[in-house]
């Protein structure tokens, strides 16, 4: 009867967790979890963990003495499940977290389903599925049972990360500027756990203050994810210093040297084909002719101003040589790449 209502509430929690306008503080109520099965799915492991913590908190809120236990699905036989779910000597309220549901032995699946259809009143069961197609049969059967609530975490897109940071900071009692959030994402990267920790760290360091870009810059410098394409783009646009800086970040964060040369190859190829393409074509046709996505055409149009065909020919040769050097003809990839950046920017006619 209450399934829909509960489902809706949980859905709200899940979306809130994802868009992170809220924190764990507004989790489920004890009635939502006790005597029910909470099925945790989705790819964001950090958000999944947060759901598990929220359930535990709800159980504790109901009964501070509640017994909380953990198990992995691979060791879950009916005997174990029975034992975990049975009232103990010390407390009647229990919470059982079963992890890695995808590894559930086939013979236990039927038992689990039977239990799920008629769960014990004072027991909250949390089933955590690690993602992937494995065990999806059991998942689908579980979803059809009325006492099962699914909490699904959706993966965050890169553009949603600053909002996530802002939500984390607010949950920790601090406001953060939009720019500051973006700077933090750039410095820390896309890992939600690190982002959350960083936001909370800042919130506690600057208690009661608004977090600004300067404050982020004081603790978090640098770049977590520099792309090889940024290096190539800067180099072909003639921004030598910027390209070298970006190259350093890229290499320090473990970008493979071959990715940098392949980005340069793509850049040089795009420019050479663009400069050789017939004039007066429509943008979409031009993109097809050059072999790049349409949005790239504008970048090419900007970059191509500084290049003549001799320069581009030299650049293409330099990229091929550098690629061979990285793959064994030379000995130091860092030197090779820096020389490549310098050669390419030098060949550009201002």
């Amino acid at each position, binding site marked *: 009867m209450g399934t829909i209502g509960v489902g809706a509430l949980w859905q709200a929690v899940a979306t809130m967790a994802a868009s992170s306008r809220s924190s764990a503080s507004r989790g489920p109520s004890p009635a939502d979890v006790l005597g029910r099965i909470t099925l945790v799915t989705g790819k964001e492991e950090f958000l999944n963990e947060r759901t598990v913590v929220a359930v535990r908190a709800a159980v504790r809120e109901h009964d501070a003495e509640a017994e909380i236990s953990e198990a992995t699905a691979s060791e879950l036989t009916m005997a174990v499940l029975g034992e975990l779910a049975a009232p103990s000597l010390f407390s009647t309220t229990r919470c059982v977290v079963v992890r890695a549901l995808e590894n559930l032995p086939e013979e236990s699946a039927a038992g689990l389903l039977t239990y799920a259809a008629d769960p014990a009143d004072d027991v909250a069961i949390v089933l955590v599925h690690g993602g992937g197609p494995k065990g999806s049969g059991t998942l689908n059967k579980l979803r059809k049972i009325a006492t099962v609530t699914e909490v699904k975490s959706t993966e965050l897109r890169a553009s949603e990360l600053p909002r996530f940071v802002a939500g984390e900071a607010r949950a920790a009692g601090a406001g953060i500027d939009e720019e500051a959030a973006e700077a933090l994402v750039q410095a820390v990267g896309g890992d939600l756990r690190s982002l959350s920790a960083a936001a909370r760290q800042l919130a506690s360091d600057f208690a009661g203050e608004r977090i600004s870009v300067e404050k982020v810059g004081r603790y978090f410098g640098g770049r977590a994810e520099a792309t090889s394409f940024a290096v190539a783009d800067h180099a072909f646009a003639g921004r030598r210093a910027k390209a070298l800086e970006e190259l350093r970040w890229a290499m320090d964060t473990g970008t493979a040297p071959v990715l940098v040369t392949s980005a340069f190859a793509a850049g040089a190829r795009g420019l*050479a084909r663009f*400069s050789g393409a017939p004039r007066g074509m429509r943008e979409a046709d031009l993109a097809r002719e050059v072999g790049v996505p349409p949005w790239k055409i504008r970048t090419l149009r900007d970059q191509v101003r500084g290049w003549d065909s001799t320069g581009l*020919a030299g650049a*293409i*040769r330099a990229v*091929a040589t550098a*690629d061979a050097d990285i793959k064994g003809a030379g000995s130091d990839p860092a030197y090779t790449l820096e020389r490549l950046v310098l050669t390419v920017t030098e060949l550009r006619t201002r």
Partner: protein
Amino acid sequence: MSVWHGLVGQRPVVTSLSGAASTGHGMTHAWLFTGPPGSGRSNAAIAFAAALQCERGGCGECHECRTVLAGSHADVGVIRTQRLSIGVDQVRDLVRRSALAPAGRRWQILVVEDADRLTDQAFNALLKAIEEPTDRTVWMLCAPTVEDVLPTIRSRCRLVTLTTPSAADVADFLVRTLGVPDDLATYAARASQGHIGRARALASDDATRARRREVVSIPTRLRTLGAAMSAAAQLNETSKAEAESITTELDAVERADLDAAYGVVERGRKPREYAPARAALEREQKTRAKRRHLDVVDRALMDLVSVYRDAVATAVGAPGGLVNEELREQVTTLAEDGGPEGNLRRIDAIFAAREQMLEFNVPVMLALESMMVSLLPPVDPAGGSGGAGAASALRRRGNA
């Protein structure tokens, strides 16, 4: 018709090998056959194997000769690969086999085609077996040059050096075996530059001739950067398509065999072992496709080199015919355009691209682009682009 019939223009080699087979003079337990690609290294090795197994020293008629030449003789093992290299595991199996006594009465013979593709590890696994083989075991390795095998292997083998057959020899061979008209045979013999397999393909297949025409016409088309880029893209695409036409069919057959072996039918249940086996097969097919692609590109580059070679020969007035006799006009233009130095530099650029692709695994597309822009006519420093060169070339063509 003796077993030596299929060797073209290798009289000295045939004399010494047939002597070793019939009289035992100079016979040894390990042989290294070297010679330029297409000169018939592996054919020579197999002919020699047949001669060794034959009671009459390679009559070409008896059961022994026929089975060796057909590749079904029990005591002649031929190891060839369609992949980029021959690994140590394959060689260990081979070494085990080499220790067996022959099933027949004469020799246990192991022929390694493409010995240049053995990895260093594989060579080292081979060392001991080659140094002290059992009494009746004979090793035959084939490689383009002696530098392609480890010095330790080289010193344990008797060297057989095949020469590049002359165009006349090849043309004669084509007329004799394929029965093609004389002018076509002469063209194929010249264009193949002594590569017999290539000459046969050129003489017998229209599509192969068309592809070659396409490649040798590249130099005259290279006028601007845009042209160079599209020439590179086009060469990459056509060679990929050609390589795929060879491998796709084979891939499908292998897939079907694998499915049959594991009892997999459409939409049916698949055994647990099927997925890894299929992944392994696909990996292997991928490396094979890569090698085919490289082989095809490599051949196209050799055709391209021949045009510049002709230009250099024309410029310095070297005696002897041109490889691309039918392109004499374009070659002359090219010779005037770049001069011998310029065209030598272009040949260098082609070999550099080859090295980048084959040695250092540079993406084919990138290596080809880098090569094509190096083949462009030198830019007139005052004129800015290649316009002046193109105009003069047009004028010359108009006069001719």
